[in-house]
């Protein structure tokens, strides 16, 4: 079957749904070009701001600390999560304009997403207008930033619905026909209202993300939390594979209230499976972060191949057909069916008799697994409650499963 990963997002055709998010301190044109050469569907420029001094290049403005990344290890697995101290390094609008023009010329089949922030009418109107005129395919405006410039930790634009409504309209006005999406923190309350406001402002989409603040760890020798910046530390933004389940949850929650805005998602995706899951949960564009830092830009080959082969296997001809396919299965706890019974099952051929299933079932208190002196685990179907703990703990892939049993 001939599959391709083309997908339409906010009226723009993407060659695939994978893009690299603004990775600090990325912003150099060379880095961006390398991403496009590798095969990502486009680029997301660094946030453009009127307050950035156009006479200084971005690199000179970056006031970054070192180190600002820190991986979180779990036993032998390195960097299952990644934390970083956010740099403060917006691009000047002049730079964004120049980058957009040169990228569009060199890579006409790729999309350029112009990212922007604003804090007043002038900024929202002007920046979006200039990005649109420079030829950006999509404009992403960040509403997760503080609404007051003098106080970067102050209330965010999204926290003030009136302000957000105004801002969305200004950006719409400024961007004219260029599609606009808004970057919104995924865990926000009042999702329905937000969706309605953005819809009434004629926004095309939202970019959802879940990047909580955290501390990656502490050096047990000298007690300094990570990352250690000259014997001081601060809160990091946490990303990486560990946040995927939360991000998937964010998509599910927004999927319940959002029917009209197209969805982009940022963070947590590490391989094609994560992408397939995000798409099934309603996303059409997946912004990569930690995975690209760790695996490099060639990661896109794996994503293309993985999602492509998956489509082939499922006999689905285009990616559009999968978008949101999992949402109907998602509901609230009170609506979960309470009838029917499942029990655990063991594939005797792959079981290596480690006894871990027995250990967890004993620990849990249902005592549903017999473990003989020959070390052969046998499920007692009468006692098993089908909670699935043993299935989660069995160290051998596809060895244990849950089976539905008929109840009369």
């Amino acid at each position: 079957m001939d599959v391709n990963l083309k997908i339409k997002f906010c009226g723009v055709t993407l060659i695939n749904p994978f893009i690299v998010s603004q990775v600090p301190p990325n912003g150099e044109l060379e880095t961006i070009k390398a991403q496009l050469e590798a095969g990502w569907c486009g680029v997301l420029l660094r946030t453009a701001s009127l307050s950035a001094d156009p006479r200084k290049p971005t690199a000179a403005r970056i006031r970054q600390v070192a180190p600002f990344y820190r991986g979180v290890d779990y036993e032998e697995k390195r960097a299952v999560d990644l934390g970083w101290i956010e740099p403060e390094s917006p691009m000047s609008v002049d730079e964004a304009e120049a980058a957009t023009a040169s990228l569009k010329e060199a890579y006409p089949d790729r999309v350029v997403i112009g990212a922007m922030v604003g804090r007043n009418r002038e900024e929202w109107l002007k920046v979006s207008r200039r990005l649109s005129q420079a030829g950006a395919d999509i404009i992403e405006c960040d509403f997760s930033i503080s609404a007051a410039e003098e106080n970067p930790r102050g209330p965010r634009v999204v926290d003030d619905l009136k302000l957000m409504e105004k801002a969305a309209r200004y950006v719409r006005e400024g961007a004219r026909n260029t599609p606009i999406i808004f970057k919104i923190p995924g865990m926000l309350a009042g999702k329905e209202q937000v969706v309605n406001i953005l819809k009434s402002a004629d926004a095309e989409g939202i970019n959802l993300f879940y990047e909580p603040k955290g501390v990656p760890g502490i050096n047990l020798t000298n007690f300094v939390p990570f990352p250690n910046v000259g014997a001081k530390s601060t809160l990091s933004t946490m990303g990486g594979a560990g946040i995927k389940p939360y991000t998937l949850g964010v998509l599910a929650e927004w999927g319940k209230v959002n029917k009209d805005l197209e969805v982009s998602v940022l963070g947590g995706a590490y391989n094609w499976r994560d992408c397939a899951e995000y798409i099934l949960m309603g996303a059409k564009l997946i912004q990569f972060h930690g995975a690209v830092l760790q695996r490099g830009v060639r990661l896109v080959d794996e994503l293309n191949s993985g999602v492509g082969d998956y489509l082939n296997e499922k006999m689905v001809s285009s990616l559009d057909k999968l978008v949101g396919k999992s949402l109907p299965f998602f509901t609230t706890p009170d609506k979960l069916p309470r009838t029917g019974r499942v029990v655990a099952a063991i594939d005797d051929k792959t079981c290596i008799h480690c006894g871990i299933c027995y250990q967890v079932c004993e620990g849990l208190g249902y005592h549903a697994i017999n473990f003989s002196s020959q070390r052969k685990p046998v499920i007692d179907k009468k006692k098993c409650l089908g909670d699935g703990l043993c299935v989660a703990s069995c160290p051998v892939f596809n060895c244990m499963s849950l089976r539905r049993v008929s109840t009369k």
Partner: protein
Amino acid sequence: MGNMPKVIKGFKEETVTISYPEAIDEAGRCYLCHDAPCSKASPVQTDVAGFISRMRSRNFRGALRLIKETNFFPGITSRVSPYDEQCEAVCLHKRYGGPIRIGELERVLADFDRGSRRPYLPEIPESIGKSVAIVGSGPTGLSAAVELVLNGCKVIIYEAARVAGGVFTKGVPSYLISDDVIDHEVGSVLSLGVDLVTGINAGESINLTSMKQSFDALLLTIGMEKSRRLDLEYCKKADVFTGAEILESLKLKAKRLRLGEKVLIVGGGNVSMDAATALLKLGVGEVTVIYRRDREHMPVFESRFQMAHRSGMKIMYRTMLDGIICDSQNAISAVKLKKTVLKETEDGRVVAETVADSEFTKDADTVIYAIGQQLDRDLVDQFDLETNEMGRIKVDQATSQTSDPFIYAAGSCVERVDTITTALAKGQLVARNMVRCMLEKGGGR
């Protein structure tokens, strides 16, 4: 002539310890099985899953402590004992990617401890007022000493050789294990407060009556000190050695050995393989091992066989030594060999019988017997101890006592002990038996 005396310089240890990153990965592979079979297959019942799980969270000190609770000599055993035939052989990871390399992990921890500023030493409990003399400082004796001290006994060890350690210091070639490792782990026994008297011939210097006055018990862990030889006639100047002699002189580095260019080793055990490997490493031209039966009957660790094989050992199965031929200078010029056939006995053992008229000769200038060890009877006779039909000291299974209840015995002087880890287990067992019996006999003094 090739057989000029050679000064033996010993070898550099060739055992490579895996790096920390590899060790962490390997520890991460372990399933941490419930009721793990690896621990049961360990002669000393080391809590393998327990130490590996500590290692995974980088608690090296805790992992080492857990190992040391059952095995005080992990640096030695992980270099010398065949883990691949013990705990690793039953590892449940075998099917998916091979067994966990438990020996390697133990060695990483042992080396970590040896290199650390505060090597592990357990706390010594309060005295129970018993004191024990041990004759022999091999693995069984040392391990019994540790167990006794950790049960509150006072221990003194008598060793006939100049240094403590028995087979550690005399019999294990230094390409397998360096003196540093042995010194550290044997030394740590002394750090527990065990007294050691070396260079003392127990048979001559120990008076049983005075012993009974000063000690609560005497433990014999004297091993099998005498090497067996075949009863063949040969000329005066012939170079005929035992495998143990060869290995010991390689270890002690002081002796000069006349080694020929065509060495024949009789026997198919670890000593034979080790001697062959060592001689080949020293540059001896040709080393041929003859064995009466087949490969699968050889009482040898696979790893040690492979080592000899890789070093270039030649081996002749179903062959036995029938005579030694000397030249006019009274040196060996050839050996007479005979072929054997294998027969199964009624009790299922396979024995070799010589084939009539199968005699042939082979050039050789040195003959080494590696056909096993036997009990040095001096002490046994002096103490008037009973022996069993295998020619070893007879003990009560339940108490480890010999025919004289004051005297206990354990290790290879009592029964067949195949590996050093097993010898350690025997030492622990006899120590526990002794503590129990001593306490039953009467409270502390």
